[in-house]
């Protein structure tokens, strides 16, 4: 390639170029082919209805994969095997997805599937998510799949219908934002702290109109689960997608998974996937550099994911309307410490942090310890496969012995639409991705944090730097 006349291009441009059915013109946007559409019960019913209204069939049911996760209870079924939904409407929504998928021949992982889980946990676990793919879902955290070098982004319900009917989307070409993250992470600092720190730097709208590529030594040394945590929160700075070039860590993760290529196909796929990286000399529309060696356990103090501080820092004074409003809602005083605030609920779960690595980190910290008396702790694995693996390792016994609730897989308290929610005024330390007002229940105050910080806070009943417990206990 050294003498090639091909211009240097970025990872994003390579994947984009491969999927152009038609390039954009002055009058029309590009037609982009979609390799995989992930479906769930909340954002699909109106799309299936639209197809029905027009008498259309799903063009490629083999390129769809469905699960139930948002509206589903995380309490076990009763003795008769019946799951009890929060509302009849929630159950009707799940029933409707079953009907739609059956009518259209789409693979749906319901209660009886060993793979069922949060859509962004299940896809990678099954090997459905692969490098170089275009992947969409009616969910803004679809960027998670970009950890594999896929171009993956959230879409609205109308567009879900477009993809069901044509396997294509009309898209304007986004800008590129390179985020280089260099250096070794300190003890007690995880991928979640890295991405919270990045969002704090870029700002809650700073990535709007862009696809992010994360790269640098910090990213290269991360396992796939950590990379998924990073890409997952790309939307929280406004970017629809976040990508990481695939490497041996990616290939090792995928090898042998149910939907990954096999045999000769595997070798050919890996050869192709190795070409999916940004060429030397290629440039991004914008570049942000992050020194990871300085990152500390990070938490949010306000009402959007860009309001981030290191856990031992003081809460900002609040010199503008947005900060004052956030401090008012959070019942915090600018200039005071966040560490030490009493915590009512701890939630460990969501498509950001509900995978094995997250659960192992939380369990290591909670082992042989007890949850604080006045703190409720919910631990919600991301999928059935994760639940089984965690139980085989005995993580559930550690959590239950500590006094935490070990629940069935689902989105749960991340968006609190299934009945899992906190009480008005509660302070929640949550490993999820959004701290918007009322996100986890009416009047609920959310602090976003890593699984380590959440586990430490569960033990002390106060917002706690995990290093305080790790140094004392291990």
């Amino acid at each position: 390639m050294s003498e090639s006349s091909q211009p240097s291009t970025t990872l994003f441009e390579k994947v984009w170029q491969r999927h152009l059915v038609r390039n954009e013109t002055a009058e029309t946007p590009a037609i982009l082919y979609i390799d995989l559409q992930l479906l769930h019960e909340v954002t699909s019913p109106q799309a299936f209805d639209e197809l029905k209204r027009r008498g259309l069939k799903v063009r490629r049911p083999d390129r769809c994969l469905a699960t139930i996760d948002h509206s589903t209870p995380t309490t076990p079924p009763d003795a008769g095997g019946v799951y009890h939904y929060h509302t009849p409407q929630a159950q009707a929504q799940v029933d409707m997805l079953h009907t739609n998928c059956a009518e259209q021949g789409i693979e749906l992982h319901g209660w009886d599937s060993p793979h069922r889980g949060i859509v962004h946990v299940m896809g990678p676990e099954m090997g459905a998510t692969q490098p170089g793919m275009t992947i969409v879902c009616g969910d803004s955290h679809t960027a998670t799949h970009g950890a594999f070098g896929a171009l993956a982004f959230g879409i609205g319900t109308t567009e879900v219908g477009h993809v069901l009917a044509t396997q294509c989307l009309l898209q304007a070409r986004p800008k590129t934002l390179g985020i280089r993250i260099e250096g070794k992470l300190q003890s007690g600092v995880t991928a979640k702290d890295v991405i919270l720190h990045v969002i704090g730097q870029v700002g809650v709208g700073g990535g709007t109109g862009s696809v992010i590529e994360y790269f640098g030594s910090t990213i290269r040394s991360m396992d796939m689960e950590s990379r998924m945590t990073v890409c997952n929160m790309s939307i929280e700075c406004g970017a629809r997608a976040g990508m990481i070039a695939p490497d041996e860590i990616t290939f090792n993760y995928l090898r042998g998974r149910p939907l990954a290529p096999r045999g000769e196909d595997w070798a050919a796929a890996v050869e192709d996937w190795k070409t999916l990286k940004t060429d030397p000399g290629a440039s991004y529309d914008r570049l942000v550099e992050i020194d990871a060696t300085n990152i500390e356990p990070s938490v949010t103090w306000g009402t959007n994911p860009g309001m981030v501080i290191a856990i031992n820092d003081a809460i900002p004074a609040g010199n503008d309307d947005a900060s004052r409003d956030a401090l008012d809602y959070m019942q915090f005083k600018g200039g005071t410490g966040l560490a030490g605030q009493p915590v009512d609920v701890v939630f460990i779960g969501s498509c950001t942090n509900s995978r094995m690595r997250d659960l192992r980190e939380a369990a290591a910290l909670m082992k042989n310890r007890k949850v604080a008396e006045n703190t409720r702790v919910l631990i919600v694995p991301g999928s059935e496969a994760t639940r089984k693996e965690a139980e085989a390792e005995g993580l559930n016994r550690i959590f239950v012995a500590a006094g935490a609730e070990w629940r069935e897989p689902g989105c749960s308290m991340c968006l609190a639409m299934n009945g899992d929610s906190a009480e008005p005024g509660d302070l929640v330390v949550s490993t999820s991705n959004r701290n918007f007002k009322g996100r986890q229940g009416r009047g609920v105050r959310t602090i976003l944090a890593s699984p380590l910080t959440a586990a430490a806070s569960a033990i002390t009943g106060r917002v706690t730097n995990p290093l305080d417990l790790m140094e004392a206990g291990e």
Partner: protein
Amino acid sequence: MSHSGLVESRTFCLPVKNIDTDQIIPGQFLTTTEREGLGKFCFYSWRYDEKGNDRSDNPLKAHDAANEQVLVAGSNFGCGSSREHAPWALLDFGFKAVISSQFADIFRSNSLKNGLLPVEVEDHVAQFLLDHPGHPVRIDIRSSTLSVEDLGEFEFPLDPFSAYCLTRGIDQLDFLLENDAEISRFEQA
């Protein structure tokens, strides 16, 4: 749906930055399988208390639905989730356009597919409007211009395809379906 191409109305202002889709329609209302009738849930937590009673500090209390069809809000409007329920709720509540100095990508895309106009303007225009609640404005899709009485006329970014589809009543899915042969060729390549 077909759009007349013109919105003439007084504005209604919510001078708040980063209004996320959980504020526009909280997650608890997303178990619906319909797209109609969501206006009653629009800004629900801002309008009603925990028991469902009217809040005395409801910032939308004074909204005059008949005469204030253009919402003006702080920057980064519609950030957060991909729920199309957000523009569905705003439209059903009575808004036909939103003016802000920045829109979140998915919200913008969802809005254009439903005839809710995202009008992105420079900071000084947004600030003028936020300082003058109830101001008369005129939005013309064909020329993608916003006219603000006493301030001037401003072009706003609107991709020509969305403008064309909105004003001709052309459906984007119909356009995609017309490209069936090219999609098939791509699939076989």
